[in-house]
């Protein structure tokens, strides 16, 4: 089956004061219709820039170079005209954000904002589009949508705002949804509800979802395939269960060990990955994780590792793979 979205060797470079910086470096992945796909990594690893590159929503003035392919149903989004992109955004590819309070315009009601998306893409009567907005709010699980449609964002609770924003993003029934940390700003019970709702809508609309997050737990529950990114590169990819239960890359292992589980002993110190994410322009010629990696040797910081197959579905970018697995 042809994938819905095929990203191939995506490379995005920005011009900064300190020279040209490669924010996304040769990222490739595929998302199928009806599939939830996880894009994982810590802040600054390039996951958001990846999604902005697909949507072409980065700051055009700062962009230095953009190469690779982002095929949506066979059409290369990176080569599409601005006009074509405007048609695609919202109708074929849509986006939801971390903080719904800031992603909703404070001066308009949520109904107006949902109708605005319809005004952009469909010529509908006022009554018809209002009905669609109400239906969409009902679909995202907002109680009494007929009344809530006239509420302003500040009149809603955090969970309801998130639902309203999702309603706005999905009102044109897009083929692909990019969810950029959709639950990070919510408390845990609401997080589960929102993720469940996104998963339900994904199935009922047969929509591909790119879930951008740093929470491997959420990914393990909801995604089928996962890509782990570090400093603009994919360091590991595979089926969600493989990544979660058999992480191969030291960075993925570190990420998993850094979140407490129910089995973590009370009072036991939490694992941390040493150091912090270095600035992109300081990335050396070798493995980008070498400075922080407990397994790294001298060669790691000079020889760039390749993304190699490890098992049937898993790929990993680490030259010490063999020795780590054998426990040396």
């Amino acid at each position, binding site marked *: 089956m042809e994938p819905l979205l095929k990203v191939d060797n995506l490379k995005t470079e920005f011009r900064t004061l300190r020279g040209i910086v490669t924010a996304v470096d040769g990222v490739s992945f595929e998302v199928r219709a009806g599939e939830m796909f996880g894009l994982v990594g810590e802040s600054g690893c390039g996951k958001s820039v990846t999604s902005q590159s697909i949507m072409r929503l980065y700051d055009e003035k700062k962009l230095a170079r953009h190469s690779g392919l982002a095929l949506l149903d066979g059409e290369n989004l990176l080569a599409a005209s601005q006009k074509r992109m405007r048609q695609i*955004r*919202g109708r074929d590819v*849509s986006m939801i954000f971390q903080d719904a309070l*800031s992603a909703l315009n404070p001066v*308009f009601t949520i109904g107006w904002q949902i109708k605005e998306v319809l005004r952009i893409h469909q010529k509908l009567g006022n009554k018809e589009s209002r009905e669609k907005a109400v239906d969409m709010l009902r679909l995202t699980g907002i*109680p009494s949508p007929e*009344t809530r449609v006239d509420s302003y964002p500040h009149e809603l609770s955090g969970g309801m705002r998130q639902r309203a924003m999702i309603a*706005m993003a999905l009102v044109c029934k897009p083929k692909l949804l990019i969810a950029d940390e959709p639950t990070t700003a919510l408390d845990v019970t609401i997080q589960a509800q929102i993720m469940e709702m996104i998963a339900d809508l994904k199935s009922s609309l047969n929509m591909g979802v790119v879930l951008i997050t740093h929470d491997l737990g959420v990914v393990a529950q909801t995604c089928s395939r996962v890509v782990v990114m570090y400093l603009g590169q994919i360091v590991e990819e595979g089926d969600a269960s493989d990544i979660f239960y058999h992480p191969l890359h030291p960075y993925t292992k570190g990420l998993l060990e850094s979140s407490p589980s129910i089995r973590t002993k009370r009072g036991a110190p939490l694992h941390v990955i040493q150091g912090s994410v270095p600035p992109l322009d300081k990335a050396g010629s070798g493995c980008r994780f070498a400075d922080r990696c407990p397994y790294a040797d001298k060669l790691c910081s000079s020889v760039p590792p390749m993304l190699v197959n490890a098992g049937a579905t898993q790929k990993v970018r680490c030259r010490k793979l063999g020795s780590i697995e054998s426990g040396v």
Partner: protein
Amino acid sequence: MPDERSALALKSALREQRMLVLRSALDKRMAVAGFAIMTVIVLLAVLAPVLAPAGPYEINPLDRLLPPSSKHWFGTDALGRDLLSRTLYGLRISLAVGGSTALASSALGLLLGLLSGYFSFAENIIMRICEGMMAIPPMLLAIALVAALGSTSFNVFLSLSVAYMPLVARVARSSTLSVREQTYIEAIKSQGASWARVLFGHIAPNVMSPIIVQTTYIFASAIIIEAALSFLGAGVPPPAPSLGNVLYDAKSVIFSAWWTTVLPGIVMMLTVLGLNILGDGIRDVMDPAG
């Protein structure tokens, strides 16, 4: 129908919440006072033909320079014209010139500010021109323009609008710069909105509140400058009774007939005061944190 009932309850709760906003606006005494003063003044101006005891141009040489009395509340001027009538009609012209100046300069300033805040190539052109214009005091710029164009009410309005436009453009630009970085702007772009829709549909409503405040200040300031221009003979052409012209006519008798300057002067002061208080009030209501 518990569902219907809860929907109704929700509706009334929402309405109550919005009433609270209105009430908090009423709590701001400044805003209410400013609004009250301006309501009275605008009513006086609008109803001038009904309220004025005489026509503004009615000359009555026998009644020259009468002090305030029950027949002539504000007294009469050197040509025997009823000063109250002239003041009321003068209020009309001053409010019309000031108000249209405020609206026109705000509208144009908002447009230029939005464009220069959104497009960096426009920013350099528009803002440099505005800075050049702001280097000249609005008064001087207006005099120069009126002198070049000829003194009619319309030209006074035109030159004052040009003189005040850069002030609004700057405020609008700086608000636009901050609003365009908000996530909701990225969100509506990610829904396929064109730049015009983003800029005028989504950014403009969010930069309005400082502009509205600025508009009331310009209104007040334009009234004063119009008066000053009329006083200098570069404003609304006489014998039309703008407040400035009324004061200009009074200048020669300032020592013998105090009422000719003091009473219209007080009316003008109250108008400007009312507008400034209203502006402060609107600012407080719109930005409770600031």
